[in-house]
């Protein structure tokens, strides 16, 4: 509880939102801690700052590494937003990331729940099999995926882009671990109250693991929103490009239009921020609720 409160209150409301009132470092160790955190923060933020800075530059200035553009301009934004393709890609990404997130939440938690709460022969083996897929990197899988999609006619379809991500081994693992924290009594009480197993999962177990679902939703949405390699391989039709694939196609063979790519990227971070802000609440509330239950 004490730790949770620390994490919750200090960095978000005090230091981030009100940088004008930082607490003075009390001693040497504290100073080092703050310095390290500051350094980490700067490292994290730099790419973002460069992204925004580049999006405000004219193309001739892109390769100057100055942070403040000499001639700041919003021309890139008007260009990108007037280019109809941007909206198509944005929409594609939104649809794909949303559907995969919903699918992952449902199927990962179903499988995790069953592996956690039902005793049956071979469940351990299944769990290990699912976990072991975590050790295979995407780069190794794209070729089999491609061959499969080609034969099944899935190339250049939403389904083709989405299918590898509709379920994740990591999510199954995460949900299984979280369902361990749900006491069996809850499920048995519901069983006596006359719910069937699917209803128990949905209306009793799921609400009790909301923090995990929220965390998983953030991971999966961000992962799919920024996915690049597979959507690039699975699509040739520009109308089916996702945002990252589409953005990388700005410019021509001779010259990559970094300022446009950065502009698109800057715009495309907005939905991820929204998703984070929505789901992050659940995570914090979950921590608080667990604390009160003692």
């Amino acid at each position, binding site marked *: 509880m004490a730790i949770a409160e620390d994490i919750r209150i200090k960095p978000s409301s005090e230091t981030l939102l009100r940088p004008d009132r930082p607490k003075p470092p009390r001693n040497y160790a504290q100073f080092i801690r703050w310095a390290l955190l500051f350094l980490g923060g700067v490292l994290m933020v730099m790419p973002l700052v460069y992204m925004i800075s580049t999006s405000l530059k004219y193309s001739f200035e892109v390769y100057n590494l100055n942070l403040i553009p000499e001639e700041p301009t919003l021309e890139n934004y008007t260009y990108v937003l007037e280019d109809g393709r941007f909206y198509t890609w944005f929409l594609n990404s939104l649809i794909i990331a949303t559907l995969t997130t919903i699918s992952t939440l449902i199927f990962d938690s179903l499988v995790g729940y069953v592996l956690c709460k039902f005793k049956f022969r071979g469940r351990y083996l299944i769990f290990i099999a699912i976990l072991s897929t975590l050790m295979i990197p995407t780069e190794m899988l794209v070729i089999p995926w491609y061959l499969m999609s080609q034969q099944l006619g899935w190339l250049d379809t939403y389904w083709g882009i989405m299918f590898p991500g509709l379920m994740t081994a990591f999510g199954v693992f995460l949900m299984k671990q979280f369902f361990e924290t749900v006491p069996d009594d809850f499920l048995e009480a519901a069983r*006596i109250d006359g719910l069937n197993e699917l209803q128990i999962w949905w209306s009793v177990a799921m609400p009790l693991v909301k923090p995990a679902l929220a965390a998983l939703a953030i991971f999966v949405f961000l992962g799919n929103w920024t996915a690049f390699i597979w959507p690039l391989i699975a699509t040739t039709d520009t109308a089916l490009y996702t945002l990252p694939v589409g953005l990388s196609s700005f410019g021509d063979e001779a010259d990559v239009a970094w300022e446009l790519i950065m502009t698109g990227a800057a715009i495309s971070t907005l939905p991820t921020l929204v998703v984070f802000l929505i789901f992050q609440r659940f995570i914090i509330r979950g921590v608080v609720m667990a604390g009160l239950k003692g």
Partner: protein
Amino acid sequence: MANLALRDLVKTYDRTEVLHSINLDVKDGEFVVFVGPSGCGKSTTLRMIAGLEEVTSGTVEIGGQVVNNLEPKDRDIAMVFQNYAIYPHMTVRKNIAFGLRTSKMTRAQKEARIEEVAGILGMTEYLDRKPNQLSGGQRQRVAIGRAMVRDPAVFLFDEPLSNLDAQLRTQMRLEIKKLHRRVGSTIVFVTHDQVEAMTMADRIVIMKDGHIQQIGSPAEVYHAPANTFVAQFIGAPSMNLLEGRGTASGVTLWTGAALATGPKADGKALTIGIRPEDLHVVESGGVLSGVVSVAEPLGSETLVYVDVDGKEIIASASGRTPPAAGDRITLDLDVRNLHVFDAASGEALA
């Protein structure tokens, strides 16, 4: 409302038999308490009645119908769990309403029923609170409410009071008993606390290692324990068990004292039981005498631990003029209050 019958009920986990042929008849409207030490199989029995645990062999009958193959929801039972099992994400009202999800009542009837149950439990003003805004006792009341709302034939309670503090436990004990009188359902209540068992039960079922030791009213199990286990388990402080031997005219204690009671089995090794309150401190002429090692004043009485020929005996002495540690005292008893058991088997002898 219904009676409940267990016939030759056996439960085996991975070839280990944990319940051995349990037979029990619970009458309609009866309050039966299962009591026994940890791991004796109380919960397992209860869960088999509820249908949460598969029956290995034997039958469970509710209302004259064998329910072995019925789902829990079709058995017309309700269960209250030790750690409440009320849903933290729902208000009290929703929690209680949960028990009615599958009922065919109209919405208005359900509302009325929830209000009625909340009224009985004194929870009306808390209906719109979440469980984390309730005290332990109130949470347990919600759990009971969720069980009550469906008006089940049989109520099952698995140690519902053990998470409450002593005072609240006494209070809830009384409330559950009143509730039983009011709704008149059949109740099977599991506890490992013999005081709970004695105070609430119409009949007590005492279990040990998956066997029923004795079934009887609180008075019966207290005054006529079937064996030394029951004799020691029921009653606090425990009954004194003394070594003895049968003679032609009665029994002889290990001290040599002769008493005219028992089965007149000559030479047989016996265990003689006597409750602390049946031993009286006397000035002279007692049966046992020894030195007080510890005196525990409880107000109304004082428990004295007396060393009699190397054996520690607990006796209950007056609260006003208690003996002190180090005193040599004499204890007398009435032979009618003695319990005689076979020393080898522990079974009570007539």
